[in-house]
C-alpha cells in the first residue's frame, strides 16, 4: 500500500507549478476573462503543448510521453490551482482519454498524435438543454453516417476541432466522432458562467459522424468517458480548493478588525478548519480515484463518483467561504476570489452535476450489495 505521489511525481508536480507560476499568472487568466472574444489563452496552450502535458499519458507510439495517469492527475491539480484558461480538460481528459479507452486503432493513430502536438482541441457534446439528457429525451440523430440535431451547451465547443457527440442511430444511442471544421456544422458562442472557459451551441445538419465504441452502447461509453474525466477533474477541483484555502488564510492573517488579525477569531479559524477538512476528504477520495484510473481497476465507477462528489463539495465550499472571509473586498471584480467561485461551478457541472453522480454512486453500491 502506497497512498501518495512518488518522489518523481512530486517533482513533476513542482515543475508544473513553477511553469504555471511563470506562464499562467492571474494576468493571463484575466486576459481571457476580460476579453469577450477570447475563451482561452493561445500562448499558454502552446507552452503546455511544448511541455508535453497534452500527451502526458498518450503512449509514445502516438507521440505522447507515455506516463501514467497519476502523473496526469498531478498536472491536473496544478492546472486547477492556477485556474488555467485553456481547453485542457475537454481535449485531454475527454477526447484523448476517451479515444484511448474506446477508439479504434485508426482513430487513435490519426487523432492522438495531433492532440499530443497541440494541433487539436476536443470537446464533449451530450447536453441538449436544461436537465439531464437520457435515452427518452435524446434528440440528435445519426442517419447513414450523417449527424443532425442541436447540442447546447458544449464546453469549449466554440474553439474545438473535434467533438465526441452523443446521438441515436436507428433508435440506439451511440457516441460519435465529428470534425467540427467540416461540412454540416454551425456554431454560436454563448456566454459562460466562467468566461475563462468557452461555451457554444452547435447545430449539426448532416455532419459526417464516425462511431466510437460499440453500436447502441452510447450511454455506457459516455459514462466510461466521464468516469475517467471525473477523476482528473477532481484533481483540478482539489487544486482550486486548496488555493482558495490559502487565499483565505493569507487574507485573514493580514486583515485587522477590532484590534487584531481576523485569523485569530474562532469564527474564522473554524471556517478555515472546515475548508481544510473538506479538502482532505476530497484529496483522499481523489487519490483512490487516481489509483483506480491508473490501474484500470473495476472499482473505477465507484471511485470516480466518490472523487467527483467530494471534490465538487470541497471546491464549492472553499470558493464561497473564501469570498466570505474576504468580506466586501471578496465581492469585487478586482479581487481574484470570483475566478475560483466561477471555476468551481464550471467544473462541478461540466461532467454532470454532483446530484447525478450521487445517484450513480448509490446505484453502484446497490449493485455491489446485490451481487
Amino acid at each position, binding site marked *: *500500500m*502506497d*497512498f*501518495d*505521489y*512518488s518522489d518523481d511525481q512530486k517533482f513533476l508536480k513542482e515543475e508544473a507549478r513553477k511553469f504555471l507560476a511563470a506562464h499562467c499568472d492571474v494576468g493571463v487568466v484575466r486576459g481571457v476573462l476580460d476579453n469577450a472574444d477570447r475563451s482561452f489563452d493561445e500562448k499558454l496552450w502552446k507552452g503546455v503543448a511544448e511541455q508535453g502535458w497534452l500527451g502526458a499519458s498518450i503512449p509514445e507510439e502516438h507521440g505522447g510521453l507515455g506516463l501514467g495517469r*497519476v502523473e496526469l492527475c498531478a498536472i491536473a491539480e496544478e492546472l486547477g490551482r492556477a485556474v488555467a484558461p485553456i481547453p485542457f480538460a475537454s481535449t485531454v481528459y475527454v477526447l484523448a482519454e476517451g479515444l484511448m479507452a474506446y477508439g479504434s486503432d485508426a482513430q487513435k493513430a490519426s487523432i492522438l498524435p495531433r492532440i499530443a502536438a497541440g494541433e487539436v482541441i476536443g470537446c464533449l457534446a451530450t447536453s441538449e438543454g436544461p436537465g439531464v439528457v437520457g435515452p427518452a429525451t435524446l434528440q440528435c440523430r445519426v442517419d447513414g453516417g450523417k449527424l443532425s440535431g442541436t447540442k447546447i451547451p458544449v464546453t469549449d465547443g466554440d474553439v474545438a476541432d473535434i467533438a465526441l457527440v452523443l446521438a441515436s442511430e436507428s433508435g440506439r444511442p451511440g457516441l460519435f466522432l465529428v470534425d467540427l471544421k467540416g461540412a454540416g456544422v454551425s456554431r454560436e458562442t454563448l456566454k459562460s458562467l466562467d468566461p475563462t472557459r468557452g461555451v457554444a451551441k452547435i447545430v449539426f445538419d448532416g455532419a459526417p459522424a464516425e462511431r466510437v465504441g460499440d453500436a447502441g452502447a452510447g450511454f455506457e461509453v459516455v459514462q466510461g468517458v466521464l468516469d475517467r474525466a471525473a477523476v482528473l477533474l477532481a484533481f483540478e477541483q482539489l487544486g482550486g480548493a486548496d488555493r482558495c*484555502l490559502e487565499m483565505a*488564510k493569507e487574507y*485573514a*492573517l493580514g486583515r485587522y478588525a477590532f484590534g*487584531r*488579525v481576523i*485569523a*485569530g477569531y*474562532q469564527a*474564522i*479559524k*473554524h471556517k*478555515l*478548519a*472546515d475548508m*481544510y*477538512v473538506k479538502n*482532505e*476528504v*476530497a*484529496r*483522499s*477520495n481523489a*487519490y*483512490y480515484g*487516481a*489509483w*483506480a484510473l*491508473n*490501474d484500470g*481497476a473495476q472499482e473505477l465507477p465507484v471511485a470516480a*463518483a*466518490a472523487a467527483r*462528489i*467530494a471534490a465538487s*463539495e470541497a471546491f464549492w465550499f472553499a470558493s464561497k467561504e473564501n469570498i466570505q472571509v474576504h468580506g466586501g473586498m471578496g465581492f469585487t471584480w478586482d479581487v481574484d476570489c470570483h475566478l475560483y467561485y466561477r471555476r468551481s461551478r464550471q467544473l462541478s457541472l461540466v461532467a454532470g452535476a454532483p*446530484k447525478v*453522480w*450521487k*445517484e450513480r*454512486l*448509490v446505484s453502484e*453500491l*446497490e449493485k455491489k*450489495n446485490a451481487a
Partner: protein
Amino acid sequence: MDFNDSTEEAAYREKARAWLAENAAAHRAKWGELKPNTPEHMAAAKEWQATKASAGYACITWPAAIGGGGGTPIQSVIFGQEETKAGLGYGYFTIGLGMCVPTVMAFSDGETKKRFVSPAVRGDEIWCQLFSEPAGGSDVAALRTRAVKDGDEWVINGQKVWTTGAHYCDYGILLTRTDPDVPKHKGLTMFWIDMKDPAVECRPIHQMSGGREFNEVYFTDLRVKDSQRLGEVGDGWKVALVTLMNERLAVGGSAGPNYREIMKLARELAGATGPSLKDQSFREKLADWYVQSEGLKFTRFRTMTALSRGQTPGPESSIGKIISANQLQELANTAVEMEDQYGILSDPEVAPAEAAFQQSLMWAPGLRIAGGTDEILKNIIAERVLGLPGDVRVDKDVAFKDMPTGR
C-alpha cells in the same frame, strides 16, 4: 499510488490471516458471545491479548525486547484489518497501550519501564488516564487536583471525571497541580498511581446513553512516592502533551453503524412511496456518508504511507473524529426517523437490529466531546495545521490561584 499490498505486505497479511484463522476461531469457540463490561468479557479480552502478545501481534510496532512485535506501522494496520474481519477486537487496552504506557516509557526510569510495559502488553494490567476534571473540560490545564510534597512522598487530594474504565483499571497516569502560584500550565506535575489504593475511590457516571463506562475518581490523602513522578516537577503539561499526541493516533475509527448498515435497513424498510432506499433525499445523504467514510479510511492510509516513508504523521488525523462523530449522530438520527413510529422503540429484545441505531443516537453526543470537542479539534487544525494565531487567553500570565472561576 498503489492501493494493493506490496509483496512484503501481502506476505504479512497472509501470515496474519493464517494465524487468526486458527487462533481466533479457537478463542471464539471457548468464550462465545459475551456481553461487554462483564467479568467474563474482561477475562476473554485478557486471554486474547496474551495470546496475541505471545505471537508478536500485540503492540506490533514496539520492540520485541519489551514484549512488542518489532514490526512496522503498516503491519499493525494490516493485522488490525484482519482482526476486525475475524470478528475480534476488545477495547479495554486502547487507552493504556495507546496513551498511558507510551508516556510511562518516555518519562520513567528503566526499572519502572521493566516493571510495567510487558504486563501491559500482555493485558495482565490495564491502565487509565486521569486528566479531565469538573472545572477543566476542554481547558485541561485548569485542573485543581493538588499534589503536595511531604518528604519523599506526595500527598494528593482532588477529583477527576470522565475517566474511562477507572473501575476496572490497575494503574493510571495522573496530572496534578503542584504549584498554584504560577500560571496554570507551569504548575503541573504527572505521576503514575495504583488504582487499587484505598485512597482512590471510583464512582461510575450514569451517562445519557444509559451506559456506565466512565467514572468520577476521588483522591483523599493518596500518598505516592516521588519515584512515581513522570517527568520533572512543574513539567506536567509537557508530559501531558505527549500523551495527547498519542491520543490522536490511538483514537481513530469510530464504533457504531456506518453507511453499510443504514443501507441494509433502508432496503428493508417501507417508506411513504416505496422502499426507503429508493427515496431520493436518503440516497443523497447515503452518498455523502460513503464519501466521508471512505475519505477518512484513505486519509488513514495516507498517514500510514507517511509513517512507512519515515515521515511523522501530521495533526491531519484530527479530522477523523470531527467527521466520524458527526456522521454517526446524523446517520443514527436518519435511521431512527426512517423507522417512523417504530423509531421511538429502543428495546433490543424486540428490535435488535434497529436498537443499534437508537444506541448510537444516544452515544454520539459523547463521542463529539470525548478526546476533544469538535470546537477544540477545529482549533487544533486551525492553529497547528494552518498556522493561525492561538485564541486570546486572558489567564496566560495569571497565577493559577488568582484565576477567575465563576464560583
